[in-house]
């Protein structure tokens, strides 16, 4: 009985050991629960890496094929907004990290504050992104919707961009149409990233409500920590998107 599994088949009443309410019954200990969910989160992020990996591969191959089109099309992106958004996300990562710290330190007020700040910064990112999207819409740079490659056939016609990049030469027509590929990938990649932001913000909303009820400041911080991982991951994706789409071969 004492040493082995055979005891499993004999009828012994199910003994419940004392454990905190947040410990799920199928875990042996809180540590195991934290370890398992944390590990699961990392694995999930790994699947996300593979998911974005497919997009990055497509982008790099197409960029290699249609280099001039991709360079001139990238000049259409507003580097100011892009930098601002990068800043916003980096700060939001900081506030998120502070949120996790507050939860660990069981400071409810600070947790709510930092989660709310993160929420606001996330919304700010989406706001800026939508300004950028709107710009593309106005200039007919949304693939599939009144698309026009006029800015690339005749860069001088696009005064705002041309004054910053006077070296841009008109693209040959067969190359100019490839800028649509750039914008397709731009929208696919930033859109997929924005979708992750929207999901993140939705979960944040839910977390702020729960934090007000004190759910995360009673010692059980797994949820906050795992969400923090997700949030940092989404930031890191942007850290790769920003140089790839905005910065490289700008001059």
């Amino acid at each position, binding site marked *: 009985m004492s040493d082995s599994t055979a005891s499993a088949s004999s009828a012994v009443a199910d003994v419940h050991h004392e454990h905190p309410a947040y410990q799920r019954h199928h875990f042996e200990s809180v540590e195991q629960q934290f370890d398992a969910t944390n590990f699961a989160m990392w694995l999930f992020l790994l699947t996300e890496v593979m998911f974005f990996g497919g997009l990055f591969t497509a982008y790099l191959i197409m960029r290699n*094929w*249609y280099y*001039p089109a991709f360079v001139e099309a990238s000049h259409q992106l507003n580097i100011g907004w892009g930098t601002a958004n990068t800043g916003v996300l980096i700060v939001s990562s900081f506030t998120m990290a502070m949120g996790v710290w507050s939860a660990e330190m069981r400071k409810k007020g600070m947790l709510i504050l930092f989660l709310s700040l993160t929420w606001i910064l996330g919304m700010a990112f989406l706001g800026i992104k939508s300004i950028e999207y709107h710009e593309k819409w106005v200039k007919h740079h949304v693939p599939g919707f009144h698309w026009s490659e006029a800015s690339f056939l005749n860069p001088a016609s696009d005064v705002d961009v041309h004054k910053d990049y006077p070296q841009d030469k008109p*693209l*040959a*027509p*067969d*190359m100019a149409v490839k800028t649509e590929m750039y914008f397709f990938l731009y929208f696919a990649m930033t859109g997929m990233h924005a979708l992750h932001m929207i999901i993140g913000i939705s979960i944040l909303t839910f977390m702020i409500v729960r934090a007000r009820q004190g759910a995360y400041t009673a010692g059980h911080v797994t949820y906050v920590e795992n969400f923090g991982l997700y949030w940092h991951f989404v930031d890191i994706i942007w850290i790769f998107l920003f140089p790839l789409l905005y910065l490289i071969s700008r001059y």
Partner: protein
Amino acid sequence: MDHISPVLWQFLEKWLGHFPLFPPEASTVAAQSDALFFFMVLVSLVGLTLVILLLVGFSILYSKSRHPIAVQIEGSTVLEATWTIIPLGLFLIMFVWGALLYFRIYTPPANAMNIYVVGKQWMWKVEHPGGQHEINALHVPTGRPVQLTIISQDVFHSFSIPAFRVKREAIPGRYTTVWFEATTPGTYHLFCTQYCGTNHSQMIGDVVVMTPDDFKKWLAGSTSGDSLAQDGERLFASLSCNACHNTRPDARGPSLANVYNSQLTLSSGETITADDAYLRQAILNPSQHITQGYAPIMPTYQGQISEEGVIALVEYIKNLDSDYRVQQTLNTTDLVPESAGAKAAAGAQSPSTQKEVKP
């Protein structure tokens, strides 16, 4: 036994008597491919027999009734190494043998005669250099290497001749090649083996292998009058390619004489061999392939020339061995301003409207 169903009887008589179990070998590579195939069959049979012998043998020897108490054995490094190394060795033999065969099938000999194949939903169009056009059929002579340059104008297709043991994907937007040398006159199946939509199973045809004499007769009897290069020349003139590629000292485009298979230096600095694929790309996506010293002014012909048109142009350029022929085209067409060049492409589909070119 007397009451066998007539339907069944008919079936038995009709098919069981004579249905093929092995495809004909009608090319030089077929026998080589089959040699490897039979080697693999042999290895597989030995491997399978071994597994079956072990399973059946052990089942009999060590069935519970005969061998009530199992002897626990941890494993055996020697045995495990054996069945790691022997299969690995055999697989590597197959790999090397297969790779040699693969390189043979996909590396055409220099003296091969080239035939163009265009796949589209759901037919095969074959263009001989002499201007013979075929649909869902391919006539080839025995005893002569034939290279197929294959392309698709819509979706993936696959050009398969089982009797020759060759097959090659027809890919939209790029040329692929395969070659064979037919050995036995006869008619063989031609299949599209890559699923390509509704009538995929109708995208079939016949490969007719003829003796060289018969083939010559067939070529003479099915010519449309102009060779593929002549079609190309006409297209070259009607699309006003000669407005720039005209060999004059002030020409805006490079001379195309002897350009085929030469090394070109592009404006990006890289060197590239002007093969079929390059010529095709240079016509359809010119700005990616600017020869050094020239401005990127050539318009694209993407969507304006059919794949057959591109093939005709490529064939024409391949056969340009001097500037003389280009100058000839200048005599027959007026120089059209460059901007009109693209519009002239509309005429590409109806060469009859163009002036006759004197050979």
